[in-house]
């Protein structure tokens, strides 16, 4: 008998987007997931906590995105040699890697058959779990080689190509194992965790007032999204109202981040499609934007711009003018480049039908963000759950049905144009109040959520406070967790030389998922 989660006692959760928290038992853990799946809820993230010091057990949390709210489901497990909970991967395949990561870090397991490690490669003993509270995070262990058990594909003419962790370009490390026949990809299996830096453990020794600096560095290309999500969680817990000016500037910074990354990706995609001119042009436009960032926000990349209570640097009238000049130069350049890309037969031949992710596959596997929008799924937190100041901007949703590299290129073009519009609206009437409010120390044991639509998709951060302004637990989630497994599907049947192009069209974060 399925339990309707609405019968459970919901409690409002501090967050920048309407959120509720439900406590469930072991049976209800799976039942709520089933009910939510039927309601087309998306899995946002999973995280665990070690609460043995408080009430003698562990907790597991799952956050789901519904059209009307975010639902956080919480399940308590008694302390035992290996606490376990029912796997959600049958309903939400994206949960699998998150659960495996949690087993590595917490020593809490599921009933899932795939029990291979995900984030632990042999760098610390298998009997020790870094996110348990009695684990000394500063201690170092000698690395022991622990080869990953890839699934092998057998048959006439099948061979394997191993790529990584060190790649041939200036990109992040990860391992890809291709099983191919001739040039055709039969199977791709990813193995990640190479950039695992123990961010979650570090949060436990950071103060509430400085946690945003660490959050910004979970994935450097999404620094504004992560630091805003952190600050939104902290501000929700402490009921701090940010000045309207600070919120407008945060949105401006977030859109600049989206613009910078989309411009960079469009150039790289042209280059990977054999059209170096595209890289030259777009990398120039991106550089123009970054140089304007120095004058407007004080840095090329806004690692420490969003701070608790507001932003670090005020926007001057001169900087406002420079930004508007930038947008005036960007827009015609972009329109012209879009025309060049669209009409370039060689480039379109590489883009179209390549790396296709069907909408049904994307739905089943739980795609989110930009990748989902390029496979016909309408989802964007800025549109569906607008938080301030997006609630007054009416952002336009971009959707492309194709699901191929060409569609992911078009989504980027559309989103750049929409971001330019949003930036101009934001600059047309920047509120004149301050740029920062004081954030009081939060009460211990409070849980808050921050959710921001970064350029890749929803960035979610769950913050639990400790005593005296400390952080008890902070879980930062990058949308790459959900979308990386989709790359394994998108390359099926494609040729190996198209992999860099397909991979770039997703452009997912290694650091964001490794943590």
């Amino acid at each position: 008998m399925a339990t309707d989660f609405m019968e459970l006692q919901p409690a409002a959760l501090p967050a920048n987007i309407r959120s509720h928290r439900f406590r469930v038992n072991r049976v209800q853990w799976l039942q709520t997931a089933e009910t939510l799946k039927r309601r087309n809820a998306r899995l946002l993230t999973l995280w665990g906590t070690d609460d043995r010091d408080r009430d003698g057990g562990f907790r597991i949390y799952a956050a789901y995105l519904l059209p009307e709210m975010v639902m956080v489901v919480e399940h308590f497990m008694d302390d035992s040699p290996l606490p376990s909970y029912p796997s959600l991967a049958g309903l939400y395949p994206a949960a699998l890697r998150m659960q495996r990561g949690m087993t590595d870090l917490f020593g809490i397991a599921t009933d899932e058959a795939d029990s291979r490690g995900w984030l632990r490669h042999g760098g610390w003993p298998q009997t020790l779990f870094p996110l348990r509270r009695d684990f000394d995070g500063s201690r170092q262990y000698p690395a022991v080689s622990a080869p990953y058990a890839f699934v092998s594909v057998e048959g006439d003419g099948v061979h394997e190509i191993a790529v990584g962790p060190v790649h041939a370009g200036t990109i992040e490390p990860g391992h890809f194992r291709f099983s191919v026949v001739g040039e055709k990809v039969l199977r791709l299996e990813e193995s990640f965790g190479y950039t695992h830096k123990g961010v979650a453990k570090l949060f436990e020794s950071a103060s509430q007032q400085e946690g945003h600096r660490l959050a910004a560095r979970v994935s450097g290309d999404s620094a504004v999204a992560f630091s805003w999500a952190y600050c939104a969680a902290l501000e929700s817990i402490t009921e701090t109202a940010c000045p309207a000016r600070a919120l407008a500037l945060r949105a401006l910074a977030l859109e600049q981040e989206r613009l910078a990354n989309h411009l960079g990706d469009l150039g790289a995609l042209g280059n990977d499609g054999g059209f170096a001119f595209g890289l030259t042009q777009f990398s120039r436009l991106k550089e123009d934007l970054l140089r304007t960032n120095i004058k407007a926000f004080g840095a090329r990349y806004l690692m420490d711009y969003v701070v608790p209570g507001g932003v670090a640097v005020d926007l001057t009238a001169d900087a406002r003018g420079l930004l508007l000049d930038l947008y005036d130069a960007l827009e015609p350049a972009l329109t012209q480049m879009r025309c060049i890309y669209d009409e370039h037969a060689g480039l379109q031949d590489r883009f179209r039908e390549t790396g296709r992710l069907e909408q049904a596959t994307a739905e089943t596997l739980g795609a989110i963000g930009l990748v989902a929008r390029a496979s016909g799924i309408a989802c964007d937190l800025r549109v569906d759950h607008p938080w301030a100041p997006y609630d007054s901007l009416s952002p336009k949703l971009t959707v492309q049905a194709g699901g191929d590299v060409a569609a992911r290129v078009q989504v980027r073009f559309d989103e750049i144009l929409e971001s330019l519009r949003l930036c101009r609206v934001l600059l047309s009437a920047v509120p004149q109040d301050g740029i920062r409010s004081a954030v009081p120390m939060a009460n211990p044991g409070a849980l808050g959520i921050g959710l921001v639509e970064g350029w890749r998709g929803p960035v979610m951060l769950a913050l639990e406070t400790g005593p005296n302004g400390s952080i008890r637990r902070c879980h930062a989630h990058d949308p790459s967790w959900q979308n990386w497994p989709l790359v394994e599907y998108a390359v099926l049947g494609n040729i190996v030389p198209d992999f860099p192009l397909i991979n770039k069209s997703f452009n997912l974060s290694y650091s964001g998922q490794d943590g």
Partner: protein
Amino acid sequence: MWNTLSRMLQTGVLTEPLPAAGQTAPDLETMQTELLEIVGRALCIRHVDAGSCNGCELEIQALNNPYYNLEGAGIKFVASPRHADLLLVTGPVSVNMEEALQRTYNAMPDPKFVVAVGDCGGCGGVFGTSYASRGGVANVIPVNYTVTGCPPSPAAIISGILRTVRPRSSRA
């Protein structure tokens, strides 16, 4: 095609002079002569991300945009450590990347240089040293020069590369 040509003409040549390695800025010709004396050809760089947040990668990628045009100055990025004179390493060295970094370094022919990029490459940055991080690059392989910043600007990275390879006499 007309659009492409017209865009090229509108853009023109944007390449800027190289930032100074020391107190005196080398002109392109001097620098290329020096590079030829040291490595006998274009300087080849291999980049390894040893666990960074990917911020430094963005700035390293910018080195080849039309403004910095590093390849135009005779410094190019190569795909194999076997072809590299200089290793550009970003990030605190994660425990999971320690072996890969060591093996990349060992695969390079002598003489070789190592430049650690970013605050993390220098000392571990916000990630420091932990169960998952060995801290700065120098804790794992020998480092010739460190470019600080979070992330360091492309100009700072170029200066760091030039300072590393230029003969000691001409260093600031």
